[in-house]
């Protein structure tokens, strides 16, 4: 779909997903790394838990479908080559941080070029000079303070997320600028704040005070209804199951079906199963129901869940039309028949002679298919090829750049 779009990605953790999404959608993406390798190559986990410049699985996951070159953008030669390269491309994506100015600032680009810049906060103004890492940007998003139990510290994802949030929004911002250029032929700068991108996952934390509401507090996965702790995650025979317990005319029917099944399985008293669960909350006030009924239901469901496997509970969820899913680990994800048969996976090489299946198709199209056409580039893998085809450099000239440490 983007087969006429050519992208230069100055690699940083935050640019990686942006470049890969555009490459998946058909763009020709060339990633530019410093001669020593991009920062993304030093992000865990590593293949077989052995570190190495070609062994970062994070790098591999976020750089397939791209070609790679090395170039020292801080040298005079690097800048000259970058200017020549940029003239042949439509888009440059970069991430600038407070510790160093963007090397691209010294380069005069064509007015047709789209330049997308990701910063932790902003290019100018308050906090633009803040020292930041993925962890501190996520802290500023408003999501972690809501994540976890109030009696302990908030949680963060074990996988860096600010780089994902920023990268995904940078893909969108770049495409917006490309569409504007489709209209009038002119490029422009697009700016993505990793902090504002990550605020998407806070689900509007920032709008609470201005709407006359108190600050929300984190509650983990447990609600308190009529003084009864109603969990949403239940331990089962081989892991955990997410089960949404709800009331009211629509969602309460699910609770009714679930209660009936628990009684059939001898895990819940028949009387409790026969309570009118859709109207449970209203019936509390007329004393038709009591909090102890809800407690009995929860106890019954805990006992039911423990007696079943994730697969059995998932089957029941489909049969009884519940809002319930297995809490999948990555093995479950890899083996899930729905993902397999739907065609989520594609095969990619992680080192010579070793292929794995990875979830590649984030969208499916009626007349396009996301494919993995090449694994993530090795360090400087395509430097000679690209400098020859794009810039017309001779073999001697490419070797000269290498000897001088420019590539």
């Amino acid at each position, binding site marked *: 779909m983007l087969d006429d779009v050519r992208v230069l990605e100055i690699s940083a953790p935050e640019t990686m997903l942006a470049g890969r999404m*555009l490459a998946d959608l058909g763009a020709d993406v060339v990633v530019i790394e410093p001669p020593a390798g991009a920062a993304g190559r030093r992000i865990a986990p590593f293949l077989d838990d052995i570190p190495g410049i070609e062994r970062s699985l994070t790098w591999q996951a976020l750089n397939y479908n791209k070609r790679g070159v090395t170039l020292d953008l801080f040298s005079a030669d690097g800048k000259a080559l970058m200017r020549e390269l940029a003239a042949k491309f439509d888009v440059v994506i970069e991430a600038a941080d407070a510790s160093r100015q963007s090397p691209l600032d010294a380069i005069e680009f064509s007015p047709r070029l789209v330049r997308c810049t990701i910063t932790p906060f902003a290019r100018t103004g308050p906090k633009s000079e803040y020292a930041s890492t993925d962890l501190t940007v996520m802290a500023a998003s408003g999501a972690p303070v809501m994540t976890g139990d109030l009696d302990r*510290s908030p949680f963060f994802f074990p996988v860096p997320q600010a780089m994902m949030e920023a990268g*995904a929004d940078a893909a969108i911002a770049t495409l917006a600028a490309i569409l*504007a250029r489709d209209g009038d032929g002119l490029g422009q700068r697009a*700016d993505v704040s990793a902090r*504002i991108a990550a605020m998407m996952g806070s689900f509007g934390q920032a709008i609470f005070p201005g709407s006359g509401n108190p600050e929300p507090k984190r509650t983990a996965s447990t609600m308190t209804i009529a003084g009864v702790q109603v969990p949403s995650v239940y331990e089962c025979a081989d892991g955990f199951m997410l089960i949404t317990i709800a009331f009211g005319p629509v969602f309460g029917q699910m609770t009714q079906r679930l209660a009936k099944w628990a009684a059939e399985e001898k895990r819940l008293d028949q009387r409790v199963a026969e309570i009118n669960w859709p109207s449970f909350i209203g019936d509390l006030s007329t004393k038709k129901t009591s909090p102890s009924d809800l407690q009995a239901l929860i106890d019954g469901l805990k006992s039911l869940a423990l007696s079943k496997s994730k697969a059995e509970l998932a089957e029941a969820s*489909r049969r009884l039309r519940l809002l319930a899913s297995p809490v999948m680990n990555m093995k479950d*994800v890899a083996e899930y028949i729905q993902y397999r048969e739907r065609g989520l996976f594609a095969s990619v090489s992680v080192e010579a002679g070793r292929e794995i299946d990875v979830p590649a198709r984030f969208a499916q199209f009626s007349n396009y298919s996301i494919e993995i056409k090449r694994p993530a580039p090795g360090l400087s893998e395509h430097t000679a090829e690209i400098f020859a085809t794009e810039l017309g450099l001779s073999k001697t000239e490419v070797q000269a750049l290498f000897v001088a440490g420019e590539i």
Partner: protein
Amino acid sequence: MAAPLEGIHVLDLSWVMVGPASARYLADMGADVIKVESSKRIDPVRTLGPFKDGKTGPERSVSYHNLNAGKRCVAIDIRHPEGREIVLRFAQWADVVLESFTPGVLETLHLGYSDLSQRNDRIIMASTSLLGQTGPYAQGTSGVGTMGAAMSGATHQIGWPDREPAGPWGPWTDAVTPRFIVASILAALHRRSRTGKGCYIDVAQAEAGIQFMLPAYYEYAANGTIPERRGVAGSPLQAPQGLFPCAGADRWIAIDASAPTAWEALRVVIGGDLRDAKFDTIIGRLRNRVELDAAIASWTQKQEAEAVEHRLQAAKVPSHVVSTSGDLVRDAHLLEARHLNKINDPVFGEADIEGPRFSLDRTAMAATRRGPRIGEHTKEVLAAVFGMSAAEIAQLGEAGVLA
């Protein structure tokens, strides 16, 4: 300059979060987005807070506005034969259609992609659901974003080892999925401008969530290790890196001084126990992590979180308060960026909603406006788009089509 999607027509048949948030991106880029809603079956997001001044009501949800800013709303009962015909006529007007029904429902109503593309073969239609439109468990499966998080492997990895998984905050995949939907739609619009070809796009929310967890998936697929929940923030390979308590209830600061220069700077600022030789090297800091974290915590916990942030940033140590909603509305960066925008709603008055998630320096983004009330633009849109007369519109209203 005109916004990038000026002149692009979007029919938003979706509800709750994923679809509306995707259409909001398009509205922010200048598209004319018409939300179809029925007062017989209102958007459930209207039952989600925050409500203005904490008082509930279908027109009082500020979350609704945050997800539907800048759209217009037409009330149609799409199950009514004449309502269905209006949707088909909108398909002729639209460049993009978004929907998030349970897979199979639109086909039952004869409003699926094959029906819509028959009227307009250039149309780009995006469907989103928990598990997608194909595969053994797709048809008839409804879901919400907490389920998406559970099925993408995220929930399993977030929690304390001694407790059940806590999972990410909220319906997590509702925040992740719109990015993949919007990028796919924009790529399809670009292709259409060259080839005239539309397409159908199918995005499964659980699958989109896996993209943000991909390194953990690779850890299993390549190394055979199933990543488990480990509680604390911060990588086991980097120290000091994590959360530290500050003065006051539930106040925290995130500090990442794992890089050598940041570590030296932190050591100078805090001094005291941090000068101990056992913390001189990376290996020393990792081996003595418990004591290291305790020494930093004993310094942070006596101070206000903001004060710690300012002192550490002055020394170029990566750090930030773990922002609460109150911190966000006072935040200097967000104020300067004008990320929060005042809306004035005729029903409840003033509230803040968020602005666009990125900026362009030449073609402006659309100004942030409040979301529409149910059916607010029905008459205006039917008259302008289809040239319907007041009498025709009144007739449809009496027939119960515009409810």
